[in-house]
C-alpha cells in the first residue's frame, strides 16, 4: 500500500505563455493539502495534471498508487473531483444526477446523500437551471462526497460563496476526514480556509512551487518583529530574516526561518525588540510572494 495519496516528482508542463516548472508534491494518506497561489499561479494546471486531464511533459505523477495519466481510468473510481466548470445538466433535477452517479459508482452512500441534502438545504426535485451559484457548488460536492471516494480533489471549492455556505462546505470536508483513509487536495485563494483545514500547504507562484511543508511547521517558521532602533545604530542582515522595513526609529523585520535566539540577536545590536508576532497565512502568503519575486528579479 502506498503511503501517499498524491505524489508529484519533477513535473513540468510548458505552454506558450506559461510554464509549470519542476513540481514536487507529496500528500500523505489521511491528510488535507491546501494549494495556494494567485490566479494564474498554476493551481488549476496542477490539478488537471493530477486528474489526467492534462498530460505533463516531464515528471512522474502517482495518485492513489496509480500512474497518471496512463492509469487514470482505474484511479478515477476512487477520486471525487469538482471544479468551477461543473458538468451538471441544467434541464435535469438534482435527484436525476444522484441516480445517475449511483448507477455508476457502487460505493454510493444513499443515507449520507440524504443527510447532505438536508445539511446543504438542497431540494432533490429542483432542476439545476434554477440553482444559485452556492447551491450548484453544494450540489456538485454532494454528488462526489456521497460516493465516499478515497481522494477528494477540489478546485476552488469555496470561491464565490457566502460565509454560511463556506462554513457548510468546510464542515463537510473536515467531516469526511473522520475516515483516516480519506485524503483531500484542494486549491483556494482564501488563505483562511487553507489555514483552518489543511495539514499540508503548497504555495505556487508563477508556475513554481515556492514552498511546501506541513502547516504547523510552516506557520511556526514565520514571525514579525517590531523593533525600536536607537539613532546611530544600523540593523545588520540577520539569518532567517527576509525583509526589514524601517522608518525613523521603528523597524519591522519579517523572518521566514525564525529561531528563539533571533530577538536576542537584535537586542545585541542595540535595538529593542518591542514585540514578536505570529503571522496569519494571508500575511505569509503576501510576504512570501514578494520575497520570491525579489530573488527572481535580482
Amino acid at each position, binding site marked *: 500500500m502506498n503511503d501517499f495519496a498524491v505524489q508529484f516528482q519533477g513535473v513540468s508542463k510548458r505552454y506558450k505563455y506559461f510554464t509549470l516548472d519542476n513540481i514536487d508534491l507529496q500528500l500523505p494518506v489521511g491528510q488535507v493539502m491546501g494549494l495556494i497561489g494567485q490566479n494564474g499561479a498554476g493551481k488549476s494546471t496542477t490539478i488537471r495534471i493530477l486528474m489526467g486531464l492534462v498530460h505533463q511533459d516531464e515528471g512522474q505523477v502517482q495518485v492513489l498508487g496509480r500512474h497518471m495519466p496512463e492509469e487514470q481510468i482505474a484511479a478515477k473510481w476512487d477520486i471525487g473531483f469538482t471544479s468551477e466548470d461543473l458538468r451538471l445538466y441544467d434541464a435535469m433535477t438534482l435527484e436525476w444526477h444522484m441516480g445517475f452517479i449511483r448507477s455508476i459508482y457502487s460505493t454510493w452512500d444513499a443515507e449520507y446523500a440524504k443527510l447532505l441534502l438536508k445539511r446543504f438545504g438542497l431540494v432533490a426535485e429542483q432542476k439545476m437551471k434554477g440553482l444559485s451559484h452556492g447551491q450548484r457548488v453544494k450540489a456538485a460536492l454532494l454528488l462526489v462526497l456521497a460516493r465516499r471516494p478515497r481522494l477528494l480533489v477540489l478546485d476552488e471549492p469555496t470561491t464565490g460563496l457566502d460565509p454560511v455556505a463556506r462554513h457548510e462546505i468546510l464542515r463537510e470536508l*473536515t467531516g469526511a476526514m*473522520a475516515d483516516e483513509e480519506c485524503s483531500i487536495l484542494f486549491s483556494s485563494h482564501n488563505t483562511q480556509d487553507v*489555514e*483552518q*483545514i489543511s495539514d499540508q500547504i503548497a504555495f505556487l507562484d508563477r508556475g513554481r512551487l515556492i514552498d511546501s511543508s506541513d*502547516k504547523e511547521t510552516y506557520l511556526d517558521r514565520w514571525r514579525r518583529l517590531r523593533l525600536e532602533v536607537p539613532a546611530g545604530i544600523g540593523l545588520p542582515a540577520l539569518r532567517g530574516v527576509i525583509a526589514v522595513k524601517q522608518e525613523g526609529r521603528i523597524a519591522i523585520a519579517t523572518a521566514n526561518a525564525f529561531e528563539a535566539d533571533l530577538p536576542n540577536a537584535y537586542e545585541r545590536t542595540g535595538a529593542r525588540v*518591542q514585540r514578536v508576532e505570529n503571522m496569519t497565512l494571508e500575511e505569509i502568503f503576501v510576504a512570501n510572494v514578494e520575497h520570491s519575486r525579489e530573488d527572481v528579479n535580482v
Partner: protein
Amino acid sequence: MDGFLISQADKRPMYLQIMEQIKQRIAVGDWAEGQQIPSIRQLSVDLQVSVITVKRAYLELEREGVIVTRHGKGSQVAEGVDLGIQLREAELDQHLEQAAKLGAMLGMTSRDLEKRLRSVVEKSVEKELP
C-alpha cells in the same frame, strides 16, 4: 464539543487556543483526572480544524504533563494536575508581560517598573484595610 471555539479575532495560533480551552475544561472540573478525552481526529472533526493542528496541541499538552497519551489507547487527563494554579499563573505572566512591554515603550528601566509595581501593590493593600 459545543464549548470549543476557535476565534478568528484571536491573534494566537489555533493550537494555542485549543490547548487553552482543554486546560480550562480540566481546571473547571468538566474533564476529570484520568478521564479519556476525544481522539485527535475526533476533536479535529468537531472543531473543523486540521488534524495536524490538534495533534500539535495534544503534543504540547503532553509535554506540559497535562494529558497522557498511550499508544492505541488515546489520551487521558493526567493524574494530579492542578491547572487552577497553572492557569492563573499563566494569566499573571501575560499581564506582567504586557506591563513590561508598555514600560519598554515608555522607556522605563526594569528598576522603574519594579518600583511602579511595588507602589501598586502597596496601594491595593491599603484599599483592603478597613
